[in-house]
């Protein structure tokens, strides 16, 4: 700002710049700054970022500088240290039940948001296939795109993308590595070996001949069926043709739902 009048120019020099610290303070008051803190997860120490929309980012590091760097790769918002995570988050990470935790998926595409929301319905100890997710969101042909959407999940563990595995029960890719994924699923009580064995025999659905309900093999309801009453199916059509109905808990056949 320049003025012809020298006194006016002198007054213009009384202008005060906003320091970087004040800028973050201002944005924080308006709720536009993400806070972050350390959390314990089944994988060990991690850090999460969150804001008033929900949890925005989780990464497997306990180093604040590394975390800030990874956060900055995704978001151009300021980040500030906090003492504790949002209510319920610590418990959700410990138990794997994060369905009710608010997540900030504003920067995800509509497709990715649909994928991640679908994955949130998979319970602890259960798994689904990539095809299942694709069918569930009404895009049965987009199996590969589902894999890509899960690979860039900003909040792993909170949104359990590790519970989506290949149809042959091989874990498949994971943000923190395939070995970690298998480890995590075992920790949650999913029996990958048994599921793989069934898949090798061409079995992808299990029904009960007493209730006439069929499930995905890892469904809690399916695991309760007594051996003598288990009926095995290679696909949903086979189950339906024998007048079995799909389980309401695990929705084994979302394409028809």
């Amino acid at each position: 700002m320049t003025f012809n009048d020298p006194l006016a120019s002198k007054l213009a020099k009384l202008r005060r710049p906003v320091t970087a610290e004040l800028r973050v303070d201002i944005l924080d008051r308006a709720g536009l700054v993400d806070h972050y803190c350390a959390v314990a997860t089944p994988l060990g120490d991690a850090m999460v970022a969150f804001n008033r929309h929900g949890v925005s980012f989780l990464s497997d590091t306990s180093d604040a500088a590394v975390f800030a760097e990874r956060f900055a790769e995704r978001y151009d918002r300021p980040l500030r240290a906090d003492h504790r995570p949002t209510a319920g988050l610590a418990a959700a990470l410990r138990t794997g039940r994060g369905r009710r935790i608010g997540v900030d998926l504003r920067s995800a595409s509509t497709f990715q948001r649909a994928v991640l929301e679908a994955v949130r319905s998979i319970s602890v100890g259960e798994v689904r296939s990539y095809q299942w997710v694709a069918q569930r969101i009404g895009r049965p042909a987009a199996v590969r795109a589902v894999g890509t959407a899960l690979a860039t999940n900003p909040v792993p563990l909170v949104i359990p993308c590790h519970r989506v595995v290949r149809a042959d029960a091989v874990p498949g890719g994971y943000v923190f590595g395939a070995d970690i994924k298998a480890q995590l699923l075992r920790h949650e009580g999913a029996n990958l070996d048994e599921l793989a064995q069934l898949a090798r025999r061409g079995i992808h659905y299990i029904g009960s001949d007493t209730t006439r309900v069929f499930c995905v093999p890892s469904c809690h309801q399916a695991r309760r069926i007594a051996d003598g009453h288990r009926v095995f199916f290679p696909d949903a059509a086979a189950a339906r043709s024998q007048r079995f109905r799909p389980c309401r808990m695990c929705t084994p056949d979302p394409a028809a739902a």
Partner: protein
Amino acid sequence: MTDDLTRRLASNLDRAFPALVDAHGPLVLSILARLGDGATAEDLCQDVFLRAYTALKGYDSSRIAELDVRPWLATITRNLLRNEYRRLARKSTVPLSRCAGEQPRSDLGQPESSVVDRDSAEQLDELLRQLPSKQRQTVVLRYVAGLTTRETAAAMGCPEGTVKSDLSRGLARLRVLLAGSIDKEEGS
């Protein structure tokens, strides 16, 4: 430029708000520092932008797009300062004139400015506080905060002609005060 900012604020408030702070933060902070207490200016600056954010949140996008941002922010700042003075006046028995006059030495100049610059800035700040309230506000809005005369008039809620006369009277008075303080220094 400003049109672009209001357009961005209208389409995505949360994403564009940091740009509003970057573009007009110094304007708000300068008004607060020169019309209020230099020590609380930064705290009040947060309040001003919180008010601005809350207000924008409630506006529909056509209203945001038409907004004249700079005088609007200046008006919020003036209102907040007035409320702050009322609050202080209720709380303390110290007369307001003394509150405004007694300025603690604060970080007035910019960090890189020389000692001489800082001294003259502080001196100018003190003299500014001796102007009649309306002249002082007008001078600060126009020359320190850098609003145009039109924007100053909008923020002060008076015609542009009044702004112009307040400015020339204010500057003339400042010159007299400035000359007087230099005489004093040379005399001692």
